[in-house]
């Protein structure tokens, strides 16, 4: 008769591990903010080639959209037959710093609007033109061109008390567990940045360079496209483009990144 040491069946030990893991995650549901001096742009974690791509406008594929944006800026459109340049003149002067302070409060919408929504508001109010579709080449081109004028400037969310409840709503969403995976944005980007998720580095999610040329997309894309990517990664139903939830998240993220430099249009893997 052999003496057998009692051992825990593998299934129970596995369940215990999972429970412990879940407990560890649960104990950090409310992510603590990253200290201001530890915030870093995803640029710093890029490989040498991607950095070179972002740094040189003759290599950065996003330059193709910026070029389109400049053409659209000067092109008359809509029933009013007006170009952006007819009101705002030279974008390199008038649009300097604009992207660094968006989303901003809109009286018409009684809430925050992002840069893309501002462009479409201008189209409907002043150009009497139909709105450009989300992620359309034209809208990305215009937002990249406007964003480009703020490159190198510090992100400066407006000091507007009307925005406070919306920033808080964005923060709440950032910390809220969603989807079948049941995780919040903060669990990765506040609590575990710098570590790996599968083979990829977890960034801090600082929106310094939107719209970005994402190598995975083989195209330019907005911050909301990126947010929706993360949501579907969590197997949650992503909020629609332009939904207040997405704008609030954008607003919170820009507030969270205050003081970091604008890199638009950035390159990311």
């Amino acid at each position: 008769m052999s003496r057998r040491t009692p051992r825990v069946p593998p299934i129970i030990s596995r369940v215990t591990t999972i429970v412990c893991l879940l407990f560890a995650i649960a104990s950090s549901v409310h992510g603590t903010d990253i200290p201001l001096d530890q915030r870093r742009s995803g640029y710093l974690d890029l490989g040498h080639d991607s950095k070179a791509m972002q740094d040189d406008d003759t290599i950065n594929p996003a330059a193709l959209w910026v070029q389109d944006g400049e053409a659209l800026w000067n092109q008359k459109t809509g029933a009013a037959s007006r170009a952006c340049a007819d009101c705002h003149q030279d974008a390199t002067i008038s649009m300097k710093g604009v992207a660094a302070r968006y989303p901003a409060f809109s009286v018409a919408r009684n809430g925050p609007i992002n840069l893309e929504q501002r462009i479409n508001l201008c189209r409907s109010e002043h150009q009497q033109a139909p709105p450009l579709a989300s992620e359309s080449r034209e809208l990305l081109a215009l937002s990249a061109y406007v964003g480009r004028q703020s490159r190198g400037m510090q992100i400066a969310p407006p000091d507007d008390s009307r925005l406070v409840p919306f920033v808080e709503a964005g923060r709440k969403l950032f910390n809220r567990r969603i989807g079948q995976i049941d995780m919040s944005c903060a669990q990765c980007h506040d609590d575990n940045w710098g570590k790996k998720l599968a083979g990829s580095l977890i960034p801090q999610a600082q929106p310094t360079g939107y719209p970005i040329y994402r190598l995975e997309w083989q195209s330019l894309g907005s911050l909301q496209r990126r947010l929706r990517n993360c949501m579907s990664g969590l197997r949650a139903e992503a909020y629609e483009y332009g939904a207040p939830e997405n704008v609030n998240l954008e607003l919170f993220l820009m507030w969270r990144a205050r003081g970091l430099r604008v890199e638009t249009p950035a390159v990311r893997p």
Partner: protein
Amino acid sequence: MARPLINVPAKVKRGQVFEIKTLISHIMEPGFRFTTTGDKIPRDIVTTFSCSYNGEEIFRADLYPAISANPFFDFFTVATEGGTLDFKWVGDNGFSETASAKIVVE
């Protein structure tokens, strides 16, 4: 919509090696992908790129489906005399795009 972006130095010395950079907007759809309803997305790529210097071809490349969207070429040549660099991209579905750049040799 976007015009190709060409980057060459405005002036070079005779005999000097100089760099030419080109970037063109193209989706480079490889033809191996399917839509959510199972239909094949047909191939749509740039197949050839060439550059000529005062009418003489100095660079040519064949492109294949594994090449990323918005293909970028970076190559070098020797400055012989001033003139024009002509660039041509040819692709599927009758795609054809040209661009040119002036160069001064002193």
